[in-house]
Every structure is written in C-alpha cells, then in structure tokens.
C-alpha cells in the first residue's frame, strides 16, 4: 500500500493531496518547530544526563516519546526508581492533552488519513505540531502531516544528543536562556489567534488565571500536580468559551474547510 500512495491511483487523490497540503509544505512549516526543539531538547539532554541516564538512553527517551513535560517527569521517575504504574499514570495525566488534541485534529484531517497512517502519524503529535496543523487554512492530509513531523522529530532527537554530550560545557546562564524558547513558541501560537478572536483571547486569559491560581494558592498546589493543573485550567477555560460566547466567528473557517 505504501508504493501506491505515492503514485496517483485515481484522479481524486490529486485534489485531495492539494487540499490536505503537500509533504514539502509540511516540511517547510516544520522547520521553525524543529529549530525550536533543537534548543529545548538540548536542555532535556542536560537534565537527563544529570539524572543519571547515559547519552544514548537520553536519546532513546526523546526518540520514543517526543514530549517535553512527559519526558522530564519520566526521567525523574526513572532516577527515583519509581514504580511502573506511577510511570504509566504520570504519562497519561501529563500527556492527556494529546488525546484532546488528537480528537481536535481529527476534525480537520482529510480522506488521506486512513487507520494505518493515523496509527503511524500519531507518534509525532506534539503541542507545536498540533498548533501549526490546526492553524492551517486547509484540511490536514497525511503527506502534509508527515512532512510537518520530520524536522521537529529530527531536531528533538539531535538536540537531546547535543545536550547530553555538550551540556556540561555550556555555562548555566546560556542553558537558562535557551529554556525560554519553548514558551516563546507557545506564545507565538496563541497570540496571533487571540488577536483575531475575542473568544480565544478571553479563554487564554482564563486559562492563565486558573493555572496561576493552581500554582500560587498553596493548598491547591500541594494537592494538584502540574500535569493535572494544565488539564483543569485548559478544560475550564474552554468550557467558559463554549457556554459564554456565540459561535459565529468559528463558523466561517469551517465553511471554508
């Protein structure tokens, strides 16, 4: 089935591929994420080695997980000799947002996304890849999505390798400054959208406020893990948006897609 997919089988595949975006377009869109990941995973490489992993173990963790927060928690559990159930639960909780994103992205995929491709491409679903994919003005096809994941995965793994090996050489102030990069990427996804949609703006502010409450109120902080805090803040803020705003401005995009 793989060789067939490259050759146009019937004429429907051509407009479908164009509509869902090309591999090259995905590659281009993924470049910025890949470069960003290179610097962020550099920090992860440093952290993993300082937690007792060897350089190849740090690289394997990055290659098989592609998730910043989940990996940081996972490496922490490894170095503390935590239980496997704990590992499982922490990964489910911290990465639960990917489930929400997967369902959300499902609403935007075109017909080229069959079960096998979905099962393979799900591996590369990250916050930033999702953010870029959903912000496209066309449907997301398998070729586009594959292209979009190539450079970020490469950057994530390469950065981890570099960090694991070179981390000790870099001065701390430099690695600290590089850590801001990942949040810069988050901001660059949210702000342009918030600028054009009051609902997104309001919901983002609500999410920030709840997240801060969960962090700064001592009782809440000691009872709710950071992974859960993100989920609670995000779900409440989105629900407020759903029930307090009319949904006309979201509708126009759907008509186009």
């Amino acid at each position, binding site marked *: 089935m793989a060789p067939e997919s490259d050759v146009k089988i019937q004429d429907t595949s051509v407009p479908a591929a164009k509509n869902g975006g090309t591999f090259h377009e995905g590659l281009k869109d993924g*470049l*910025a994420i890949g*470069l*960003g990941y290179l*610097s962020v995973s550099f920090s992860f490489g440093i952290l993993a080695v300082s937690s*007792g992993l060897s350089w190849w*173990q740090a690289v*394997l*963790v990055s290659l*098989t*997980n592609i998730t910043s927060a989940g990996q940081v928690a996972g490496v922490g559990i*490894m*170095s503390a000799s935590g239980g*496997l159930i704990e*590992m*499982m639960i922490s990964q489910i909780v911290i*990465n639960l947002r*990917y*489930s*929400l*994103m997967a369902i*959300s992205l*499902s*609403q935007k995929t075109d017909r080229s996304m069959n079960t096998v491709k*979905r*099962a393979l491409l*799900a*591996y590369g679903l990250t*916050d930033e890849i999702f953010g*870029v994919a959903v912000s496209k003005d066309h449907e997301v096809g398998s070729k586009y999505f594959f292209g979009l994941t190539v450079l970020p995965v490469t950057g994530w793994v390469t950065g981890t390798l570099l960090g694991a090996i070179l981390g000790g050489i870099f001065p701390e*102030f430099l690695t*600290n*400054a590089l*850590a*801001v*990069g990942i*949040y*810069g*990427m*988050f*901001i*660059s996804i949210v702000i*342009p959208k918030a*600028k054009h949609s009051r609902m*997104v703006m309001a*919901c*983002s*502010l609500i999410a*920030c406020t709840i*997240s*801060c409450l969960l962090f700064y109120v001592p009782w809440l902080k000691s009872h709710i893990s950071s992974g859960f805090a993100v989920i609670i*803040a*995000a*779900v409440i*803020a*989105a629900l407020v*948006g*759903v029930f307090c705003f009319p949904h006309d401005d*979201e509708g126009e995009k*759907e008509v186009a897609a």
Partner: protein
Amino acid sequence: MNITVFLTYLFVMAFTTYLVRALPFTLFRKKITSKRIKAFFDLIPYTVLSAMTFPAILYATGSLPTACAGLAVALVLSFFEKSLLTVAVGACVATLAATGVMMLIQMK
C-alpha cells in the same frame, strides 16, 4: 542505570505516551457536528498552551527579571505575527541580553 531496568521503564513510558496519542486519533474519526463540542475542541489547544506557559515561563530561567524580558519580547513579536522561530529565538536573545544586564548591575 541497569540496561534491563531502563528498557522496561522506557517501554512503559513510550507505549503509554503513544496510546494516549494514537487511540483517540485512530478511533475517533467522526466529524463532530455539535457547534458547542466543536468550539470546545477548537479552543483546547489555545487554553492548553496558555496554561502551560503561565506561570511556568516566569520560572524558566531561574531569575524573574530575565524571564520577564523574554516574555515581553515573545508577546510583542507574536503580536506582530512573526514566525514561530523568530519568536522563540527573539525570546532567548532577550533573556540572554537581560542576563547580561543583570550581571553588569550585580558587578557594580
């Protein structure tokens, strides 16, 4: 770390993370028709990223003033809809510059 122990952890970690992504992506295929549910899933990425950024970004550098410099530059660059990379690099450079200024102030 013992290789067998590491590989066991790695497998559990990677497999769980994979299923969290792949199960909903492969099983949940129906187009959602309800406007409200659709709006919920449209909003989720932005609320997730917002909640992950605040207040975490303030503590990312280990120094509030340098983190604020990075945050401010990221906000301004994104407001003018600069690319992902420009914003990320701009934030890092601003943080580095602020770190330099802080070092100068502390030296005096």
